[in-house]
């Protein structure tokens, strides 16, 4: 059985017809030619297919394309504003946070979604119980970052660079927010 669906991907609206068995990952890569999300495992374990779906990080290999009808998808390729890289992308460059680059689009989407979650005060398994009860997630130290990024594997083992890149991007975003510089919009509208 087939279904007609609408997806907004990196600001561009698409109408497409998919087999009801098609995953969002396959619809993006095979039907729309959006290859930023990668298929590492196809069962939710590696995180290389991570995108922001309606603003939340999810693994697209475990979402049916039909279930995503009407959704807004932002991939790593859609994070840049025109010619300007997203601060997370810049931080990955500055910190050599990759080697082969296969996991990188997933890592970056996951990291961007993670900073939003932390800013919203969501605790992680690494957050001390009392702090999380008060909704106060103090600082994104390396332990917090590692726990919160545990859904993304890197076969090249570039974790040291990944953790420091995310810490750096978190501080930059924090500083920008504190000084009133608007954060780059993530959703919709560009291109």
């Amino acid at each position, binding site marked *: *059985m087939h*279904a007609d669906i609408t997806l907004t991907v990196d600001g561009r609206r698409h109408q497409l017809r998919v087999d*009801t*068995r098609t*995953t969002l990952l396959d619809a993006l890569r095979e039907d729309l030619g959006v290859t930023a999300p990668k298929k590492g495992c*196809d*069962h*939710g*374990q590696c*995180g290389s297919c*991570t995108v922001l779906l309606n603003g*939340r*990080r*999810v*693994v697209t*290999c*475990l*979402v*049916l394309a*039909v*279930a995503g009808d009407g959704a807004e998808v932002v991939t790593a390729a859609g994070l840049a504003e025109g010619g300007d890289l997203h601060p997370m992308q810049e931080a990955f460059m500055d910190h050599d946070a990759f080697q082969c680059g296969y996991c990188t689009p997933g890592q970056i989407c*996951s990291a961007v*979604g*993670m900073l939003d*979650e932390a800013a*919203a*005060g*969501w*605790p*992680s*398994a690494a957050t001390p119980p009392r702090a*999380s*009860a008060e909704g106060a997630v103090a600082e994104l130290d390396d332990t917090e970052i590692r*726990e*919160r*990024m*545990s*859904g*993304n594997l890197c076969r090249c083992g570039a974790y040291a660079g990944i953790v420091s890149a995310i810490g750096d991007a978190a501080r930059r975003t924090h500083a920008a927010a504190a000084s009133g510089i608007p954060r780059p919009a993530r959703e919709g509208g560009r291109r």
Partner: protein
Amino acid sequence: MDFLSPDTWAGALAAKAARPEAVPVMGGTDVMVELNLGRRRPHALLDLTRVPELARWGAEDGYTRVGAGVSYTRLVERVGSRAPALAAAARSVASPQIRNRGSVGGNLGGASPAGDCHPPLLAAGALVELASAAGVRRVPASEFYLGPGRTVRREDELVAAVLVPEPRGPQVFAKVGPRNAMVIAVVSFALALDVAARRAGTGIGSAGPTPLRARAAEEFLAREFDWAGGADPSPEAARRFGDLVAGAARPIDDVRGSAAYRRHALAVLARRAWARCAAEVRGGGV
């Protein structure tokens, strides 16, 4: 494959009545793995993600009612302090991306003996609300599980919600696995104390055909726990408690661990859980 996508709860129940063989899918984090691996080829999927009722939670007569579709992320964020052991389990499920989609309802629907929600639901004395076009019933978690993947849920029923009693004392969840994230538990254990009633509830995961309660251990702890002062147990009492918990398990040898290791690990988790609850009583954090 037919794809049914009702946008109301009544519509979902009607669809399940008309097509009982349709496989419900919420977060899809279990169903999609089976589809992608070709382990399951259903004729119809019943997508529940557009049913607003399933994503709700709220207080109800001494319970917190958590809709079957509330994601783990939401559960931790919104319901955390009202269901501490369940929230602790929710935090440890899979990865953040999967917690953004996966749900308690999906955990109960799949009913894997290793599912992380089950021990806290058992320990806290939660109810599972099942609904069909014919009506609604609430089943104690301790009567819900029948075997691996098998529960008392009929084919025409859906899980509507879980009802977790308001906490009346310290609650603890712990699991053992090779690393912190993305591990199916080798064993897990939950302990929930009711300080006023001086009662203890337990739940064991991944160490039997179903999640289990350790009733003898519960009775022992109710007698031995220092309810007023929260003193640490004597080494003998702690060991006895660990042994009673391990003795209630019916583990097997499998790829994740041997039966002997599981018993050993359970006893350790149980002793630690007692110590943590005692510390909480001492700290007055109840």
